[in-house]
């Protein structure tokens, strides 16, 4: 039996399916002609991400930068929620403390931006180490509760330390030298996002990362094979905290100042929603999910006529673009949980696989791999 290459663009390849294992068939690479449409799409994506922002106003670019930062937050939560199956309902605290740490190091201690970012990532890791060290023997629902209470402690105690947070006016967070312009800072944040993506990818290949994957599959089997469940979970928590602190620092310098009242429970929920809607364990899905939630107010402003249309609806029903993510987000989450457990990542997987040089297979949903339902209680 013979097959032809499905996307039609590449040269016809004849493969004896019966003789080749599915994995080997999957590895069939496209020829030169097959790469051309792929490269066009890649170039289009690069244009949208790298070049398109150049023409926009500084305020718009700030929004795009925030999208990159939210993507890092989504990747951070994914380490916990996607790889280990533990849920953090207080992630706004980790991000917020990172933001304040970096701003504090720069404004009060007079350190450079890079020291501030390192300190933010460090405090993220330290918090995770302490909180995880104390409470990771608590698993599942109870751990979620502990993180939720911790988020509240950050909101009502830690963020009330005026010398740390600058009191009601907030802490100033200037942009680093040479990156003062919004555009340069945008590319800096994209570089950090790329770094986090790379770290996430490499960490999952280390012994600790593979231990996590084994743990997710079946904790009992994993511990039979000598994996220290607590240490592996703590490792994931620390990685997650580091990423969150880093994202917080980047958000702080993007906004030029940090105030205490943003880092609340609602934000923690938005973080979880964008992670789940993005798609657990799907890096591109998570990036899209994070960026989507950060950009939602902006996108709603962009749709021509929508703003006018929305404001024409009589008074109590006029949904402002700022409020829209709070209303649309939970709806998306519920649809997601009930109908499409793999999130955006599952939906775009065929395209992403095709871009990576595989055949276009519209039925490839990777369902076995991506399921929120294997988050354990």
């Amino acid at each position, binding site marked *: 039996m013979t097959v032809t290459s499905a996307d039609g663009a590449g040269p016809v390849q004849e493969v004896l399916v019966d003789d080749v294992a599915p994995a080997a068939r999957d590895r069939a690479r496209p020829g030169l002609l097959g790469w051309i449409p792929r490269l066009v799409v890649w170039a289009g994506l690069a244009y949208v991400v790298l070049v398109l922002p150049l023409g926009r106003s500084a305020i718009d670019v700030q929004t795009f930068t925030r999208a990159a930062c939210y993507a890092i937050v989504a990747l951070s939560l994914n380490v916990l929620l996607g790889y280990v199956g533990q*849920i953090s309902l207080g992630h706004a605290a980790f991000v917020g403390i990172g933001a304040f740490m970096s701003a504090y190091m720069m404004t009060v201690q007079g350190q450079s931006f890079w020291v501030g970012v390192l300190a933010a990532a460090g405090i993220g890791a330290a918090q995770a180490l302490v909180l995880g060290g104390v409470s990771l023997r608590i698993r599942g629902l109870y751990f979620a509760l502990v993180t939720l209470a911790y988020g509240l*402690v950050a909101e009502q105690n830690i963020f*009330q330390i005026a010398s740390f947070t600058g009191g009601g006016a907030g802490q100033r967070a200037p942009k680093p030298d040479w990156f003062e312009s919004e555009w340069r800072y945008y590319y800096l944040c994209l570089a950090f996002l790329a770094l986090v993506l790379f770290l996430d990818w490499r960490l999952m290949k280390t012994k600790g990362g593979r231990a996590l994957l084994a743990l997710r599959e079946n904790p009992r089997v994993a511990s039979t094979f000598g994996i220290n469940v607590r240490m592996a979970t703590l490792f994931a928590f620390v990685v997650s905290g580091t990423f969150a602190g880093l994202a917080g620092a980047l958000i702080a310098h993007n906004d030029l100042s940090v105030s205490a009242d943003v880092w609340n429970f609602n934000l923690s929920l938005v973080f979880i929603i964008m992670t789940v809607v993005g798609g657990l364990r799907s890096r591109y899905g998570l990036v899209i999910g994070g960026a989507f939630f950060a950009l939602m107010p902006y996108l709603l402003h962009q749709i021509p006529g929508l703003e006018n249309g929305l404001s024409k609806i009589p008074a109590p029903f006029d949904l402002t673009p700022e409020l829209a993510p709070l209303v649309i987000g939970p709806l998306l989450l519920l649809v997601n*949980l009930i109908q499409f457990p793999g999130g955006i990542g599952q939906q775009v997987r065929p395209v992403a696989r095709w871009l990576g040089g595989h055949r276009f297979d519209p039925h490839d949903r990777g369902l076995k791999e991506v399921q929120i339902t294997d988050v354990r209680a």
Partner: protein
Amino acid sequence: MEALGARRGLLISAAVVVALVVALFVWNQEQALVIGVLTGSAYGLVALGLVLVYKSSGVFNFAQGEFGGVALVTLYLLHGNGIPYGLAVVGALLAAILVGVLAEFIVVRPLFEAPRVTLLVASAGVALLAIAIQVWFFDSQGRSIAKAFNRTDRLTVLDVQIADQRLWLIATLVLLAVVLGLFFTRSDLGLAVVGASQEPTATELVGISVRRLSTFTWALAALLGGLAAVIAVPHNASFTPGVMTSVYLIPAFTAAVLGGMTSLPGAIVGGVLVGILQSVATSAPIFQDGGALAIPGTPGTLIVFVVLVAVLVVKPSGLLGKVA
């Protein structure tokens, strides 16, 4: 063995309460005790709903607070439009029940077989949606809300005046504790709910619809959440969207965990304990500015967090519960 464990838990909590009371009298902080019992009973009321849902479906229901939020908004709207207070309260409770049933139909049913953490995320989504809709229809401003009883000087305990609204709260709590206790041990419906939580398959086998029971439980929990909100919040005379989640939900969860997550009297005792701890933390000089252990911001939050972690690490089954 189990009974022995429960009795020991009871002894421990009794000892903790006695120690706290003695310490408070020694420090001349007995007012904190009364205030703590009053706020704690509100936590207990919210915790009752949490325990109820956990008992029957094993879910940590993060939307429990916002059932109350919906009730508050309804009470505000109805009473603001000239409907008598009593009718407005009934309307508010009906709205809360409606939201509870809706949440059960839209979220819990499709996820009946899903892991409990998925349901936790889903219930948190319901809470956020409820808050967002409240902000959408109003804004995040505080609104003043009328009380059922306005007299405040009827009763004075240890130099603390207890407002009638608070007396109503305590009366409701005690009444509910007795009624729910009888309901779960004496009535067929209550026994069916307990059975469904312990052995769903066996319950189905004897001809009881576990799914219909689930709807009933969520409606009952929503009613409790609504009651907690319309009785406890008007004491502070104003409410903002999400107040039930940000102010009441965490202490209530701590209370439920203290009580072992499955015990209804445990939830009430836990609520009162958390309330006392919080008010001690707020008034004790040692935690104030300049004290030896000064806590910035709201000391009560930190104390509740420490207690929660300590209980979960040292005795995960809670003080009164059997199995967490």
